[in-house]
């Protein structure tokens, strides 16, 4: 048996103030600046950031631009084609559309039929005469809101679960991972359908569904990062200096794994928008009068062959959002390599 040396407080002295300068902090900030520079050096990343920013701005101001409220029905302005001031002189977006009939096609202009020569519906109107322009951006707003709230909740649950599981390890880790194995093996589709059966379809239910299925991925990412960072010297150093678990987790671990989690968020948001659209499609999504991108898409589908303009704006917004988020996530992944 060898004697184990027991450290006493006398063995340590506090570091002089000269060593506590902001040098280290500057170094950290320097790295962040470097990363930002690198991030914006790639054109695709800039494009992604622009797309997402523009969409967020539009979702805020979009519903008020056209002067028509998103849920204002007007049965005398039904199924109008898009008409945009300025562009109409070029012969496009002048409110006319070619409608296929049983015998050949007919070119019609509803603005003339309704004698609404002075009115403009930028994206046209739907089958209840609601302005598609306001509806699209309102839908975008609701979809973004759903995705954002769900992802933040995912982050909170997933991060805590992953950190606890990865940091404490041992039996706790094994049990927590087995639980994830079981929960993770239930397909999202099944979870969502069952949930929709039990609860009424709507805003909160969709968020709950997204939350129940999304946190697992987040916790796996957090855990793998924790396992990597946990063994590093600065954690050991903090531990030797007598830091408690809470201090190590929140001051040392979290700042070092948050980058990877943000990348995961950028991937989760389009996933959430996707799932929301899917739910609306199957008829389990938002109520129609409270539009979201999903309900707009599924409404557009119903007569997309007759009036394709009903589908295109919502579809374009959705694709822009997807592409934007993916480009940003991609750029952040490249940054880590």
């Amino acid at each position, binding site marked *: 048996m060898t004697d184990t040396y027991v450290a006493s407080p006398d063995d340590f002295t506090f570091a002089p103030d000269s060593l506590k300068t902001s040098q280290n902090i500057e170094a950290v900030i320097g790295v962040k600046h470097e990363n930002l520079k690198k991030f914006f050096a790639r054109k695709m990343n800039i494009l992604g950031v622009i797309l997402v920013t523009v969409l967020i701005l539009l979702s805020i101001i979009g519903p008020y631009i056209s002067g028509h409220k998103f849920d204002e029905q007007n049965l005398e302005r039904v199924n109008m084609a898009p008409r945009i001031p300025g562009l109409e002189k070029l012969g496009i977006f002048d409110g006319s559309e070619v409608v296929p009939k049983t015998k050949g096609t007919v070119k019609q202009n509803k603005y003339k039929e309704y004698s609404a020569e002075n009115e403009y519906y930028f994206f046209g109107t739907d089958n209840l005469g609601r302005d598609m322009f306001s509806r699209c951006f309102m839908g975008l707003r609701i979809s973004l809101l759903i995705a954002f709230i769900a992802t933040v909740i995912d982050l909170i649950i997933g991060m805590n679960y992953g950190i606890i599981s990865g940091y404490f390890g041992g039996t706790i880790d094994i049990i927590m991972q087995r639980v994830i194995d079981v929960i993770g093996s239930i397909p999202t589709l099944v979870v969502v359908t069952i949930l929709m059966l039990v609860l009424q379809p709507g805003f909160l239910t969709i968020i709950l569904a997204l939350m129940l299925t999304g946190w697992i991925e987040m916790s796996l990412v957090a855990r793998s990062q924790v396992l990597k960072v946990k063994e590093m010297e600065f954690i050991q150093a903090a531990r030797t200096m007598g830091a408690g678990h809470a201090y190590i987790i929140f001051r040392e671990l979290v700042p070092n794994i948050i980058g990877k989690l943000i990348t995961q968020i950028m991937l989760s948001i389009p996933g959430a928008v996707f799932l929301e659209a899917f739910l609306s499609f199957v008829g389990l999504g938002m109520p129609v009068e409270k539009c979201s991108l999903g309900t707009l898409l599924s409404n557009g589908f119903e007569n*997309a062959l007759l009036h394709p303009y009903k589908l295109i704006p919502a579809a374009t917004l959705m694709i822009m959002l997807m592409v934007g988020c993916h480009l940003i996530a991609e750029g952040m992944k490249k940054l880590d390599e």
Partner: protein
Amino acid sequence: MARYILKRFLISIVTLLVIILVLFLMLEIMPGSPFNDEKLSEEQVAVLYQKYSLDQPIMVRFIKYVGNVCKGDFGVSYSLSENTPISSMLKRRVPVTFKIGLLSMVFGTATGLLLGLISAFMKNKIVDFIYNILTIIGIAVPSYLIAMFLSYYFGFKIPFLALLYDIRSPMYSSVIPIISMGFIVMAVVARFCKAEASDVMQSDYVLFAKCQGLSSSTIIVKYVLRNSLMPVITVIATLLVGVLTGSLVIEEMFSIPGIGNLLTRAIAANDYNVVIGLSFIYSALYIIVMFILDIVYCIIDPRVRLTSKEG
């Protein structure tokens, strides 16, 4: 190895049992019953409950159900198509979903591998451009939008493809569904394959092979393909599950008589047994694919075997 497989197998079984139990509990607290017909009096409903032994405690039903599932009996449908055994409903529908899912996997994987490998080996601006466009579309555009686009242009404007599923010509009428579901598979496989191939190309053993003076075609076939295709198997398996469970919307759109279509109708009709049966099928599918994947991966990649022995 055997221990590892046994462990995985036990986890899978437990998971399936948990899923059935959760489904049972969920449906227990669900509003409404399969006999929502207002014409039925309370006594009649009670008789129906007794007939289908719904009046027994939930644990008794659960154990009975698990026993029956082991024999391949999922019970009968209550309201959707009365008293038809669910197993016979599934027998007609599962092959349809499977066939379309597998075909779109084959389409997606083949084109994805081709695209990924071409863009990995050919440093060419046009190839890169096509690769970027196709992968971004595949990942960012939902399959139903692609389906809508395809059916608008190739089914409606220039009508040479079918707009709806037709039992008489299942192949021809499922071209659009297959392509639109295969798109995401193509994009993911292509990106994965390109990343892997580029990694392998930069590895030491490929450099060594080059130094030995091997021709580039030998290097690509013997070294790069072999080593970069193995990891692709992992994504293919997860994608397969995604395609099979995600075909719901496409099945709705083209009125394909598959299980996705049945699930939506069963939910609307409160048909407990059908919902449980289908959810079970979906979950089992997922778990079986993951189980097989783990074993296959364990066989081809010795590193997994070694780490699992330690663990």
